[in-house]
């Protein structure tokens, strides 16, 4: 256990040699900031998506033709609803609409304002909607990202959609969602179901897919078998699978970055090794003096390792702090855009501020281990210099 005097002396030395340490310190801080930001961001996004997905339906049924999902007949929902264990079966209408001016996609979601909504999330979004006013003309409720884009082109009152079958559909902007709702509603456009079908080019008796609520987890496999017995040409998607697919995606984006980042880290480690291997005659003399007044090789190694460790820890702490502020207080400008692959609209999202123990230890190990590994050999080299020679 290093005693007080030892630590005091350590700090004194670091303070006296602060110019020598500053370059390493600054680079280290930058490196920590960079990868902590990416990791914190990808972790926060994963969490965001998980919480959004928990509001997703238990099972989704799509009609499949030649391996691709096609529109699903709405009447199927009645058949599915009769299967034991299925609490409800609802057809959904949604799709992507290409917004030409910016080259982005909106997600159009069709709703029946009188019915229960397909998901809890939608239900929450639409709470308190003035249905009468909403239905009095063709109108829509838009996500904050969509709003930003429409406003850029001065579409403040309404927007003219162009359905695939030709013509125009003028839709009034009824309302918009508050920006902090979440990722999924960012690029969303909600409108009455028949209007949505017209704009998306879906036939009247068709829907995009059918969602089932199956409260009992153990019942789901059974239900899936019965679904396939009713219609052979379907695909059934479970919610858990979607969650995992999303997680994979985000984890891999982070992972791919990590692989690139390792190259940076290795370069840094080599520089560090070089830097610490340059032993000046002053350094040698200092070690010689310490050895002469009774310090052992072990003591000197301890001093030198702790010196590096202190620089590394301080850089790590500062880097992490900067990353935390950058991601959670400033919502990660620039870097954020890299991760919003699917939400291609400007994301005004509030990320949940969180850093768990595992995340922290991962960041910590990832930086500290290579850092200290790089200085071990140089530290040893300087600690075992012959004291008599060193002081000459």
């Amino acid at each position, binding site marked *: 256990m290093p*005693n*007080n*005097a*030892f630590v*005091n*002396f350590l700090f*004194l030395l670091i303070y*006296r*040699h602060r110019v020598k340490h500053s370059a390493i310190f600054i680079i280290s801080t930058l490196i920590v900031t960079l990868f902590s930001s990416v990791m914190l961001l990808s972790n926060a996004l994963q969490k965001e998506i998980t919480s959004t997905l928990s509001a997703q339906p238990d099972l989704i049924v799509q009609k499949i033709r030649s391996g691709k999902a096609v529109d699903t007949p709405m009447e199927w929902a009645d058949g599915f609803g009769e299967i034991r264990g299925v609490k409800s079966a609802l057809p959904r209408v949604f799709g992507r609409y290409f917004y030409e001016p910016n080259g982005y996609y909106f997600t159009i979601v069709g709703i029946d304002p009188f019915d229960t909504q397909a998901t809890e999330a939608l239900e929450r979004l639409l709470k308190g909607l003035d249905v009468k006013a909403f239905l009095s003309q063709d109108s829509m409720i838009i996500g904050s990202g969509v709003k930003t884009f429409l406003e850029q082109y001065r579409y403040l009152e309404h927007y003219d959609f162009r359905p695939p079958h030709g013509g125009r559909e003028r839709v009034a902007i009824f309302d918009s969602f508050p920006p902090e709702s979440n990722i999924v509603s960012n690029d969303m456009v909600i409108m009455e179901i028949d209007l949505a079908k017209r704009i998306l080019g879906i036939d009247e008796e068709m829907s995009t897919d059918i969602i089932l609520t199956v409260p009992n987890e153990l019942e789901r496999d059974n239900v899936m078998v019965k679904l396939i017995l009713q219609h052979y040409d379907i695909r059934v998607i479970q919610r858990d699978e979607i969650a995992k697919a999303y997680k994979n995606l985000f984890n891999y984006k982070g992972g791919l970055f990590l692989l690139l980042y390792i190259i940076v880290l290795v370069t840094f480690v080599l520089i560090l090794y070089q830097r610490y291997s340059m032993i000046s005659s002053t350094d040698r*003399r*200092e070690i*010689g*003096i*310490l*050895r*002469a*007044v*009774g*310090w*052992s*090789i*072990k*003591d000197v190694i*301890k*001093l030198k390792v702790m010196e590096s460790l202190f620089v590394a820890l301080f850089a790590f702490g500062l880097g992490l702090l900067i990353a935390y502020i950058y991601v959670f207080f400033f919502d990660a400008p620039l870097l954020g855009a890299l991760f919003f692959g699917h939400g291609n609209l400007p994301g005004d999202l509030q990320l949940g501020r969180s850093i768990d123990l595992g995340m922290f230890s991962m960041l910590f190990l990832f930086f500290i281990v290579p850092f200290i590994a790089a200085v071990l050999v140089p530290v040893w080299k300087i600690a075992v210099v*012959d*004291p*008599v020679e060193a*002081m000459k």
Partner: protein
Amino acid sequence: MSQNIIKVKELNKVYNEKADNAFYALSDIELSVKAGELIILKGVSGSGKSTLLAIIGALSKPTSGSVEVDGQNIAKLPDLHSSMFRATTIGFIFQSFDLFDELDVHDNVALPLVHTGLSQKEIDKKAAIAMELAHISHKRTQRVKDLSGGEKQRCAIARALVNEPKIILCDEPTANLDRDNALKFIETLKTLKALGKTILVATHDPLFEQLDITDAMVNIENGKIVG
């Protein structure tokens, strides 16, 4: 009554031992020093007297022979133990003082105690006593690089005393001092001897030749003791 505190027998120190250019820095050294004695090792530079001091101080290892200091055979101690030996038994004073220029006097004096596990308070107390002994207390917060040659040496003396060693080894202590400071150093030596320290001084300064407190004068030439 006073026993031999230093016993050196058949000591050899050879560089490049197995090569053609083998160099005998020390050969067949026999030396005994009683506790409390002041011994002058005299010889030109390169004669091997510094090497002998380094070996007695366990700072370098002999090629053969035995070195017993304060009842311990230090010829073949692992580093952890030879360091412990230096930390408890030896005080070094070097020709070029060898201080940390960036640190102040107090921190330099405290250096030998920092790694020992003593508390900062105890260390400060011991350092204060040592600085008092070496007459450098008034400069305790000054950086070493701002000190004069004589002050630097007094700082070095304080550092050598702070661990309360039995033996003090001085390597050319007056080589970088003017005559005034050299005389002051000799006064200090007298004080140390009065304290009962065993002192070895390696020097070629004629100032030490007529010293009345010297117990023995040992001449070293080409790594051998003569006369």
